[in-house]
């Protein structure tokens, strides 16, 4: 059969953001796929070299549109490591609760994207609505719905308002009460299972070879999670499970995401219970206009909702970073794993596989 070249994207349902992929197809089978990113390249890392340590916060959150909070966290952690700043105890808890909220919101967005892509419009609307409830909580806490710019080196911008945790628990119960409905209409729906099971299989050996992290690895039975391996903030204070699946297909990946979302809600409850009632939430830092950080380099990492998120940061002793390089989970998943996972699959499953890898395009391009 004749081989054809097919351009897929940059606008399609398989990806949040713009990202295209060139497919070599034979009939409707994919022979070879090559990813083509760059539609959202804004040169943030270069731009950050020209702005002060604190000025960079409005930039970092824009690297990942869906969950800006872990980007703020990793940047704040990098600055803290270089400057030797400690976060106060209560600040650590506030940060962890905030990041788990972000994880739930991001996974709901992921469920929306997947359901929407496969035509499960009801589920998509539910997921969007429930994410919106969480965005209301973010708005109350930070004043913004999407880009919160709430974390800062040394802690967080402000403490929880009065009664915030009660309202948060109430909201999470409201979302959690819908889980059986989600299961019935989406996760355990036979229509969905037929589309997602045994599609885009990445087995454990391949995943390890290609540097996969996060849910792609959890779907193959590896409980690789930075919150356990290298606990940051308050994650070493609570007990939680890492949920894994065995098969490594698109369905397992989505179930790994669902389980993680439910676990995150439980983690928020545990964190609220253990949180110190009083105390500072932020360490005092120098005047941001005159803040210089000693020369050196640091590598920090955390677990974003897509997997291991790293940051390599260099200071030359000045008031601006000398070099910032984000290692985002989507980079590996979207460029290396995706190309491999698409080989031999049919054209109709391209969007399906892409979205199950949970790639966010702006995170690749930065």
């Amino acid at each position: 059969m004749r081989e054809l070249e097919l351009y897929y994207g940059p606008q399609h349902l398989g990806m949040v953001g713009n990202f295209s992929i060139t497919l070599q197809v034979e009939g409707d089978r994919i022979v070879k796929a090559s990813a083509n990113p760059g539609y959202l390249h804004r040169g943030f890392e270069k731009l950050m070299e020209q702005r002060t340590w604190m000025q960079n916060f409005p930039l970092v959150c824009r690297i990942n549109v869906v969950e800006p909070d872990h980007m703020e966290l990793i940047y704040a952690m990098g600055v803290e490591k270089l400057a030797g700043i400690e976060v106060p105890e209560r600040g650590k808890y506030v940060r962890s609760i905030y990041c788990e909220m972000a994880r739930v919101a991001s996974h709901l967005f992921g469920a929306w994207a997947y359901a929407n892509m496969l035509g499960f419009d009801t589920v998509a609307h539910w997921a969007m609505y429930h994410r919106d409830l969480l965005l209301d909580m973010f708005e109350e806490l930070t004043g913004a719905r999407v880009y919160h710019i709430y974390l800062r080196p040394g802690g967080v911008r402000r403490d929880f308002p009065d009664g915030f945790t009660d309202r948060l628990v109430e909201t999470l119960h409201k979302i959690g009460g819908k889980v059986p409905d989600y299961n019935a209409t989406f996760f355990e729906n036979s229509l969905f299972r037929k589309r997602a099971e045994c599609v885009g299989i990445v087995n454990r050996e391949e995943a390890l070879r290609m540097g996969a992290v996060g849910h792609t690895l959890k779907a193959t039975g590896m409980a690789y999670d930075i919150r356990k391996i290298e606990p940051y903030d308050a994650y070493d204070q609570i007990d939680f499970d890492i949920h894994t699946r065995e098969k490594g297909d698109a369905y397992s990946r989505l179930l790994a995401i669902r389980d993680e979302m439910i676990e995150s809600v439980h983690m928020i409850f545990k964190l609220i219970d253990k949180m110190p009632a009083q105390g500072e939430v932020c360490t005092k830092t120098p005047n941001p206009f005159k803040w210089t950080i000693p020369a050196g380099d640091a590598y920090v990492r955390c677990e974003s909702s897509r997997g291991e998120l790293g940051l390599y940061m260099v200071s030359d002793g000045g008031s601006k970073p000398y070099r910032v390089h984000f290692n985002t989970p989507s980079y590996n998943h979207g460029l290396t794993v995706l190309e491999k996972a698409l080989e031999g699959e049919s054209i109709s499953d391209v969007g399906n596989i892409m979205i199950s890898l949970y790639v966010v395009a702006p995170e690749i391009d930065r």
Partner: protein
Amino acid sequence: MVSLKEKLLSDFEGLKIDDREADRLFIDTQKEAVLSLLSYLKKAGYNHLAMVSCTDWIDEGKFELVYIVNAYLSGDQVFGKKEKKCIVIRTKISRQSARFMTVMEIFENAEPYEREMHEMFGIDFEGHPRLTPLMLERDYKIPPFRKDFDTLNYVNNTFGKIPSIEQRKEGLK
């Protein structure tokens, strides 16, 4: 038990190892030793290349390549097993003839990282199968992430000067 640092120092020559952080190991090495060091670490269980990065030390006339490896530990394992969780390998290459060997034979996922370093810093990785542009669409005389790339100058020359508000008001009159 012999620590990883001692093992590395006995097996390799000319390493400078900094282990003041509890779960990081910063290694400075000659560029010739990078590949053997990476495959040594991979055999020792550090089987995940987290990232490849590059810093442009323009005053020294060097590029510093940074390879970060860590171990794929599973949540069920005892976490004390690997004494240092992340290893950062740094090596300097000349800025004038910026070329290096690819590490794709050891870590397959280095491919997009090296492609990006080629595009943004102009480093040639010998043996890399596709050093084609990854993100950018235009040709740059100086690769854009180098320190001597003047962003403002580039924008003015490529897209024309953006008039100031006063100039625009004048134009409207």
